[in-house]
């Protein structure tokens, strides 16, 4: 088997007195959709932060295509092909959709030292406009290109963030609860985008509460609870795993039963 796209080994992270992550292992292959689930506060967003570099890990290693990246700052990892969305959407509110997506190009353009040479290029030049427009079309927000992000409905902003990631053609994309606040149609659109990305060979790591969506989309699922990995396998296996059911699905099931 070839070198995995992303490999975490024994990743640990402490915040003050709290052990947020302990000894997490995770392997993701190119073209895989990897679900990352767990109860609230389990450490999913922290783990994403560790992979992208927002959080510095205290122990363990993170390899991208076999190379260790845990010491690199956020923007360097982005340039190596690690993209992400945020649970609480982070976009430049006062800029237009087009400009926000164009900013996503930095990861690709600055990946080489000569990237600085093109910074004075006009936004209308082909090298910028074409990929941005493609991403806008793919995410279905082309008609909003010149709107300010602040004026968009919440659901649309998810797609702006996605387009901003897509435009850089990342190798790994981490989606932090991308379906929150989406309509059913938008949710379908999102699933289709995720599949397309995977088909293109991107590793998609999906943090999501909608287990339905996770079940439909993911090839593999990692479940964490209290900062520890308690399961790794296919979604189908996860449904039968005792620990997972107890920790997470159980509570959801209980909730469903209570509803019924």
């Amino acid at each position: 088997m070839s070198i995995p796209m992303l490999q975490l080994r024994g990743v640990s992270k402490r915040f003050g007195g709290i052990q947020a992550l302990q000894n997490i292992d995770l392997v993701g292959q190119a073209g895989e959709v990897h679900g990352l689930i767990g109860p609230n506060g389990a450490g999913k967003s922290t783990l994403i932060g560790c992979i992208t570099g927002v959080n510095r890990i205290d122990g363990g290693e993170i390899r991208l295509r076999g190379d260790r990246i845990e010491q690199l700052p956020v923007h360097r990892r982005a340039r190596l092909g690690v993209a992400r969305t945020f649970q609480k959407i982070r976009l430049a509110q006062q800029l237009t959709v087009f400009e926000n997506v164009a900013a996503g190009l930095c990861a690709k353009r600055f990946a080489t030292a000569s990237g600085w040479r093109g910074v004075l290029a006009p936004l209308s030049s082909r090298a910028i406009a074409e990929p941005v427009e493609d991403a806008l079309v793919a995410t279905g927000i082309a008609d909003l290109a010149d709107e300010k992000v602040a004026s968009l409905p919440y659901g649309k902003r998810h797609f702006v963030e996605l387009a901003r990631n897509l435009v850089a053609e990342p190798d790994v994309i981490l989606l932090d609860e991308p379906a929150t606040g989406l309509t059913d149609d938008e949710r379908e659109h999102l699933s289709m985008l995720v599949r397309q990305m995977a088909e293109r060979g991107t590793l998609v790591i999906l943090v999501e509460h909608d287990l339905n969506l996770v079940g439909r989309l993911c090839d593999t699922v990692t479940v964490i609870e209290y900062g520890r990995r308690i399961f790794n396998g296919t979604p189908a296996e996860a449904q039968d795993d005792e620990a997972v059911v107890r920790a997470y699905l159980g509570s959801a099931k209980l909730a469903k039963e209570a509803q019924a």
Partner: protein
Amino acid sequence: MSETSAWILRALFVAVLATLPFLVNGYWLNMAILALIYSLVVYSITVLTGFTGLLSFGQAGFVGLGGYTYGVLSVKGVDPAAAAAWGLLVPTVAGFLLGLPAARLRGHYLAIGTLGFGVLVGQMLNNMVDVTRGPMGLLGIKSFGFDRVTWFYFVLALAVGLCAALEYLDRRTFLGVVLKSVKYDEISASASGIGVFAVKLLAFSASAFLAGSCGVLLAAYMRFLTPDLFISAESFRYLMMSVVGGVGSASGAIISSLILTAVPEALRAFGETNVRLLVYGLMVLFVLWFLPGGIGGLIDRLMTPVRRRITPRPRVAEPAPQPTSLPGRAS
């Protein structure tokens, strides 16, 4: 306003400015020259605060470094062109060096940190008597040998050219997007591969360069320097010009530095008393009340429809690798 009329308006503005030497006497021409020179330091705030979102209370420090480097060297007999080059280099390097620690600071921590830099430069210029002649003032500075009208067209060309370049940078170029991404959200900017620290260093150096160029021109034009020209209060005056012009709008910056330089002089008509400054203070308040976005905000409001229409995207209609069944819903 259509794009054509916007261009006509811009051209008209520059044309009116260009006829100034024929319309006003030397006194007002001098004011215009000073205002245009000051517009450079306001641009430095446009780049730093307006584009990149970094607040500086110490711009007078860079202006002073540029001015005194030029002044001291030229008094020592260095050729004006060489002195000017040094006068641009020294503040730029200082901006870079200050940026190293300052780029890690946020918001008001940065503002006060840079205020410290401004205070330090001010005190140094005053206390290093052997070099700067301190409070005795530096006289006998050599200049480029321009007469007043030449000076006017020279600084007009510089100010208008820089204004156009900055507007272009801001609205049309990739670099503009990079800078503004850092301004609005550093975390998402770095997640998109933008080296926030490097961008901030670049902004600091560019801003210091612009402020330094203002200092060099001030020294070369006025041909005297005193440390009092570069005290912290000046930094705040530049900031006032920037805010009245609309931080981040280069067009607003040039108009506001013209207005805010001319008004205190025009108000001498109220008599040489405190009333004049009282009216000045009130005027600033009124501008802010009625134009919270400054002059640039007003320009933007007039121009916004233009911006939307000038970026039509015919390619968007073409079916690219299209989602077949699930197109995004039109909002």
